[in-house]
């Protein structure tokens, strides 16, 4: 079973490497959205410092949502997904592997890029650890929750906007806690409680989301 997981991850990573522009588009979207805020609200350093966690988190959330439709759509188009549904391996295992691969492609780069953007917002460097840790715990949860929406809207017309409507309300708790972690750290309270909550979200999402996604995929293929 582990072998299948590794193979699915390897395959998805390979496909992504062959089409690097898709991955880069998401990253560039993240960078551009974050860069829009100083232009919109004005380059006041004190203001930028306060809004930095929220802006980075919202941009990460939008970027990860933008990439969601790609989790299943290509495999759906070329029939691979149907083969996965027929496979003897439990579908939720394959789904978990696919979501993990998707996070490695679209989530992890956001985590690594966040400190650079935080510099633009004059965020004190002692909070970079909390920023990256919160994103490291939060973005996989976003990918897992988002995969449910991607599976539910598979092959529907108006997929993109509909996906946003379904997924964004479910993202809100992660956003509140994730951005709150930095605010708590900046207030000197320590981000421990928020990071623990994010970890809890991640564990719950990792336990249930692959199964829900598998159910949704079967519904889509009925």
């Amino acid at each position, binding site marked *: 079973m582990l072998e299948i997981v590794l193979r699915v991850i390897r395959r998805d990573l390979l496909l992504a490497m062959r089409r690097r522009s898709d991955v880069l588009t998401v990253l560039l979207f993240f960078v551009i959205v974050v860069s829009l805020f100083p232009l919109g609200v004005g380059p006041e350093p004190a203001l930028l410092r306060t809004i930095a966690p929220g802006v980075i988190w919202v941009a990460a959330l939008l970027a990860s949502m933008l990439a969601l439709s790609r989790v299943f759509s290509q495999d759906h188009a070329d029939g691979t997904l149907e083969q996965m549904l027929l496979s003897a391996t439990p579908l939720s295992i394959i789904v978990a592997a696919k979501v993990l691969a998707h996070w490695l492609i679209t989530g992890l780069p956001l985590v690594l890029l966040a400190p650079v953007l935080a510099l633009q917002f004059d965020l004190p460097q002692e909070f970079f650890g909390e920023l990256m840790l919160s994103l490291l715990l939060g973005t996989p949860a976003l990918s897992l929750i988002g995969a*449910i929406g991607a599976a*539910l*809207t598979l092959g*529907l*017309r*108006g997929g993109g906007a*509909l996906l946003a*409507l*379904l997924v*964004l*309300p*479910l993202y*809100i*708790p992660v956003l*509140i806690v994730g951005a709150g972690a930095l605010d708590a750290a900046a207030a000197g309270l320590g981000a421990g409680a928020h990071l623990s909550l994010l970890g809890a979200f991640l564990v719950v999402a990792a336990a249930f989301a692959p199964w*829900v996604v598998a*159910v*949704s995929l079967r*519904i*889509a293929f*009925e």
Partner: protein
Amino acid sequence: MSSRINWFKYASPQTFYPLARTLAGGFGLLAAVFCVVGLYIAFFVAPTDQQQGEAYRIIFIHVPAAWMSMFIYLVMAFWAGIGLAFNTRLSGMMASALAPTGALFTFIALWTGSLWGKPTWGTWWVWDARLTSELILLFLYFGFLALQAAIDDPRRADRAGAVLALVGVVNIPIIYFSVKWWNTLHQGASVSLTGAPTMAATMFAGMIIMAFAFWFYSIASAMMRVRCIILERERNSDWVAEHLGSRA
């Protein structure tokens, strides 16, 4: 075995259709009566609040609407779960019939809450835990409605909507307990099942009567809507043709 009650008699759309008509009429009438009585108590009997003056009277709409917004989501998720587990046709129809009423009450709760917030808190809106989670509830209703509207095949629409409703049900306890968990601007509950209510008896009576009025209205409107859904989905069956033919 003939004496056994057939529990599943009304699980079929065909037998449920006439029952829904009776239920819609009966509960609609009850809703009207309770609403008149409740509003009479709200405006003429209940005393003026010592702190908030007359502004508090919006509680008779606000609190029952907020209760119903959460309760309808739970009922909707219940039917969605039943439909998903047992593959019953009517359950999915019930879930889709309930969703618009639920969204309506969520909107009313937010709207009246903001009208109430202005005179008492001095602001239309605050990003407090309960308001935010109620807003998320409204988005969840919209997501459910949008997903069902986007899928043409009613069977897939029911089942996909059911999954979404069940995923979103996590939000309900968060809304309900938010005022306990986070100490924010929204006041705590004045009514609980265990303790005596912290308000005058007539106020409490008015609120409960209004809650019943809203509840009966929800049942009546859901039944009206489910009748339309049944006719629409079963339009190719003989009994619908007969039913519509006998009316024409």
